[in-house]
């Protein structure tokens, strides 16, 4: 049924259709509307058989999820940003214990400085936590991917984090097709836990593993994620058959398959890139877009293949590892070692800064002229930065900071303006 609703409400409706049994939550912007609406659905009796726990922290929230999932219940929560960091110990633990929890991450920057707006710093902070991390481009995908997420989590007995851009998606009101219960039930069978605390068949979950088997445990976790690659694809295909929509999967390529320049990105920015793609197509300028829908597991082979014909890849990412650079960039580098490909890293949209088509177009133009540096901080206020660096130089040794900036391309980038 088509509805004109916000992304958060849509996700809450989708979660309710998945028949969750336990929802612990703690409010944090920008995911609050999801758990608020779920609370309403439960209080009003529309969602039955579900225990809602408004807990005292995100750490408790995910810890409740661990207990609940360990006891064999279908379990959901949502968080963002600082909240994810606060629960981080439990994040690693949930995957270590192979618990099929589904969690929405309303992507948001991490402080300090405190900033409540969107970027992907939170998601990247959990990139090694062992969760399946899926990204959605739109609110329709958010609805669809959450439904897939439960089936995926339970099939693999792994926790799944569905990443949707804070505000850009969570707060955007769009027309969304909310599936009906019958459709969802047809796609998502009741949970059959891989392991469960059961008084009739006691087990110990969460043993201490020493050097004798720790490597093997970690390898098996890695193996499980690799196995997930095929399952994600297969489930997305099945979903498309039932629901008639392309949602989920590992990657999605938009545009001419023979394009020399391909943008690689995750989340809602794909929408902006596609808009630019429509505009440039009218001008006869061709470029491709590779949307990474599964960040973990990282579909390296699929990416390499999708970029097989590209000469230049512009990896656009909404976070970066300070002191190193774009995380996604380096991962794409690793995935395309065998490709004949020039990779440019673009960091943009940090802390909610708007990603305008105009700015994206500048990147494209520079790339077309072969002038795009290895690393670009999109829309960086160079004047402010330089002034600040200069002020600091007065107090510290001179050339060092500037050299660093030159190294990372800021100085040369500024000179192009």
């Amino acid at each position: 049924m088509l509805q004109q609703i916000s992304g958060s409400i849509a996700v809450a409706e989708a979660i309710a259709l998945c028949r969750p049994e336990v929802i612990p939550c703690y409010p944090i912007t920008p995911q609050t509307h999801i758990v608020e609406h779920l609370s309403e659905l439960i209080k009003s009796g529309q969602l039955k058989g579900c225990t809602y726990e408004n807990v005292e922290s995100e750490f408790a929230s995910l810890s409740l999820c661990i207990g609940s999932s360990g006891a064999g219940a279908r379990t959901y929560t949502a968080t963002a940003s600082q909240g994810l960091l606060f629960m981080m110990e439990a994040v690693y633990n949930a995957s270590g214990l192979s618990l099929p929890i589904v969690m929405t991450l309303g992507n948001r920057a991490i402080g300090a400085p405190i900033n409540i707006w969107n970027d992907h710093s939170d998601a990247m902070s959990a990139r090694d936590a062992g969760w399946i991390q899926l990204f959605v481009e739109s609110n329709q995908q958010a609805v669809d991917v959450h439904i897939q997420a439960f089936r995926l989590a339970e099939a693999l007995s792994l926790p799944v984090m569905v990443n949707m851009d804070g505000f850009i998606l969570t707060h955007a009101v769009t027309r969304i097709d909310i599936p009906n219960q019958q459709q969802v039930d047809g796609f998502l069978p009741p949970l059959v836990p891989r392991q469960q605390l059961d008084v009739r068949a006691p087990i110990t979950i969460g043993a201490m593993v020493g050097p004798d088997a720790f490597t093997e445990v970690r390898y098996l976790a890695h193996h499980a994620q690799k196995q997930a690659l095929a399952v994600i694809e297969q489930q997305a295909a099945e979903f498309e058959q039932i629901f008639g929509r392309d949602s989920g999967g590992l990657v999605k390529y938009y545009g001419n398959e023979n394009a020399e320049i391909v943008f690689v990105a995750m989340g809602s920015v794909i929408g902006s890139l596609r808009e630019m793609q429509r505009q440039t197509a009218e001008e006869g300028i061709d470029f491709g877009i590779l949307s990474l829908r599964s960040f973990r597991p990282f579909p390296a082979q699929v990416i390499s293949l999708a970029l097989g014909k590209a000469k230049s890849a512009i990896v656009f990412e909404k976070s970066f590892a300070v002191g190193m650079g774009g995380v996604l960039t380096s991962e794409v580098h690793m995935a395309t070692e065998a490709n004949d490909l020039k990779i440019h890293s673009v960091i943009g949209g940090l802390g909610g800064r708007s990603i305008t088509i105009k700015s994206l177009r500048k990147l494209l133009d520079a790339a077309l002229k072969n002038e795009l540096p290895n690393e670009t901080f999109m829309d960086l206020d160079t004047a402010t930065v330089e002034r600040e660096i200069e002020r600091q130089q007065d107090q510290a040794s001179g050339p060092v900071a500037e050299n660093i900036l030159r190294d990372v391309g800021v100085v040369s980038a500024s000179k192009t303006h």
Partner: protein
Amino acid sequence: MSDSNSQTVKFYQTGTFTVGNRLLDESLRTVQATTERSNSIDSGHRACQGCGQALGARYALDAAMRATDNNIIAANATGCLEVFTTPYPETAWSIPWLHSVFGNAAAVGSGMAAALKARGDTTTRVIAQGGDGGTTDIGFGCLSGMFDRNDDVLYICYDNGGYMNTGVQRSSATPPAARTATTMPLGDNPGSSFDTGKFLPAIALAHEIPYVATASVHDLHDLERKVEKAMSFHGARYIQINVPCPLGWGSEPAHTIRLARLAVESGLWPLFEGERGEVTDSTKIRYQVPVEDYLKLQKRFAHVFKPENLDQLEAIRALALKNIRRYHLV
């Protein structure tokens, strides 16, 4: 003797306070006296010799198992209890058991309770447990939240007064003057400082949860009665059990129960119960002993017997007197 006193005669029996007693009606014997006990923690665990926590956990969980007809699942904080029971590939637990991380046992327990509630399972009951560090320090937020929501979990804290698993560091349950690796008996204020620390049972009581109790491994009848009573309530419940630690206390393994007994009999570990914010009962001291009897068996208190630290000894006596007065122990 009149008929009214004949009950008294029946009560006075050889070894009334022992685990069993062949003269006692079977229904009045402890769970530990029966061959049918659950042995929630079974042989082969790697606890130190004379571990009070291994004992306290088996006591409490077996009692809970009997009270619920063997329908217990448990969440466990990181710590000695977790480490010595579950080194891969061997587990000593015979009950469904899950260990997550250090500070979240109460929340994991809450999650289990939420799952059972969602499923309408009113038979299976949840216990969350941890040491004092995992409870009074790092796990305190989760525990307080569990109390606040009145989640249907019995939380049991095995209090040995420090971080023993990591090498005997101070926790907020470390008693004043005690030597730990982070409160060495040095300087003007040797050992753990006076006027620090927290007594979590009183804090638990302040949450006005259905039931709070303290217990000791030396008085099994009292301990089992409290666990069984706790299981008769729904909602959040809390029991803190004093479990001596030969390693951390510098005591003989054989003295574990003796120390637990002396802690109570000296007044340093008050045994009491409370319901919904009110203290309802306390277990009287049977043979009151000076605090020295308790302290002198532990190397962690050796310095309080030095002439220059006698003020500490006096301050410890004052703590005992305060407990005795506050909880009406004599």
